[in-house]
């Protein structure tokens, strides 16, 4: 569904992404994991057109994305930080994004599930961080995008809202959406992820299914498996190429 092909990005002398090639399949939840500063956020921002790559191509459904940004009508994005202009009301934020997306039909069921109707006329600045994050999640999923990008989606959400969001992510996956998710809550990835792409120092160190991850690390659960991946990278001991999913490029460790 989404293909990152040979993405390179440097900020000055610092090479954040060094020829990253990743596939995110439709009807799968792909977890993008890695230590802080590994290049996950930069890769997401390149997908969204927020950051320009130095080299490489991104394709969605086999079509390379263009500079006009029209492909973003297929993408729903939930950023980690839930900051909105504080004097706009919840309904106005929804109205603005709907208008910017050309009046695309919207699915407001998540607004209802999160109880945001009660806050419809409240200025966003008076809402709690968790409620603003619910609004972020609702906007990301409102326009039936074929690609969902979720950056630390449950950070700041209460347990009930986090469970609601996880259920919704599974439902979107089952509807055939390609879901790309980053999270430092590894137990959450255990529940949600079908595939894992592990990035460190701007290169892909592992890409494969959860079963392949377990096999490669010898761990039965995702959380210790990912920790094991991180430790192996720190020891400059790359995971063997046999663990990498077919067709996914990796870089030498």
């Amino acid at each position, binding site marked *: 569904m989404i293909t990152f092909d040979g993405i390179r990005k440097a900020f000055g002398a610092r090479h954040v992404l060094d020829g990253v090639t990743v596939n995110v399949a439709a009807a799968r939840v792909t977890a993008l994991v890695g230590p802080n500063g590994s290049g996950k956020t930069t890769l997401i921002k390149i997908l969204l057109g*927020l950051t320009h790559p130095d080299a490489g191509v991104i394709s969605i459904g086999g079509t390379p994305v263009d500079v*006009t940004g029209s492909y*973003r009508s297929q993408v729903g*994005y939930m*950023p980690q930080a839930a900051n909105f202009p504080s004097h*706009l009301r919840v309904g*106005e934020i929804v109205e603005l994004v709907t*208008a*910017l997306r050309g009046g695309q039909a919207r699915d407001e069921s998540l607004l209802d599930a999160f109880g945001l109707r009660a806050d419809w006329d409240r200025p966003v600045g008076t809402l709690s961080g968790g409620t603003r994050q619910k609004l972020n999640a609702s906007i990301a999923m409102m326009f039936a995008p074929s690609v969902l990008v979720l950056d630390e989606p449950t950070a700041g959400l209460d347990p009930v809202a986090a469970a609601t969001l996880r259920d919704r992510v599974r439902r979107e996956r089952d509807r055939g959406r390609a879901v790309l998710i980053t999270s430092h809550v590894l137990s959450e990835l255990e529940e949600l992820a079908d595939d894992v792409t592990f990035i460190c120092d701007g290169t892909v160190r592992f890409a494969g299914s959860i079963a392949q991850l377990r096999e490669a690390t010898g761990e039965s659960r995702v959380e210790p498996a990912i920790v094991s991946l991180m430790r192996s990278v720190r020891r400059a001991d790359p995971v063997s190429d046999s663990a990498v999913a077919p067709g996914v490029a990796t870089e030498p460790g």
Partner: protein
Amino acid sequence: MSVAGLVFSFRVRDLVRSPWLAAYALGFFAIGESLFWFGGTADQVVLSLLNLVLTVVPLAALVFGVVYVYSTREFTELLLAQPIPRRQLFVGLVGGLTVPLSAAGALGMALPFVLHAGRQAVPVGPLVTLLVAAIGLTAACTALAVLIALWIDDRLRGIGVALGTWLALTLLYDAGVLAIAAAYDRWPLDKVMIGLMLANPVDIARSVVISQLDIPAMMGYSGAVFRQAFGSSIGVAIALLALVSWALVPFLFARRRFERRDF
């Protein structure tokens, strides 16, 4: 509605509800009213407000502009992730910042004159010139603020540069001009002084308004030379054109930066 129009209208909605903007308008209103109550003539009130405009408007536009751009950065990123062109988004964002700020200042300044219009003659020409100069100064300084915030990622450094720019425009620049005038007093500096005046939006605003009030003693060296060289109406037209350029050039640089930069 276009993307720029949509973003503009929602940003205006956000800003008109801001207590800071209300305080800005009320501040000008309260000072204008006080000046009338203390027995000032309408001409004197325009002159006093001019001194306030030359100091407060650049400060408010630079600092408020920089802070607003930084504080809405995450929301700007969310908008950038929508299927819309960056250029239109930028126009909406900057327009939605400049227009409410200009309107709040102009409203606060104009209202006391409207309230006192029955009791004394309103100097329409100087007042309109003051309002135009204040709006032009707001547009120029807001564009500079946006440029600063887009160029410098670190919020504290950005605010520092904005304050430094304000200090340079309102104080250091005039000191430099005086120093040049004193050092080269035997040289024919007329054209240099005109050039120096046009190179600072605060000097332009001052010269334009003072020329309407017909108090050349208040114009300063460069303003007096300017008026002598161009005559009142042509001079004002050139000065206003320069003020528009002061808003347009930083705007175009900021737009280019916005279109090309990584968020």
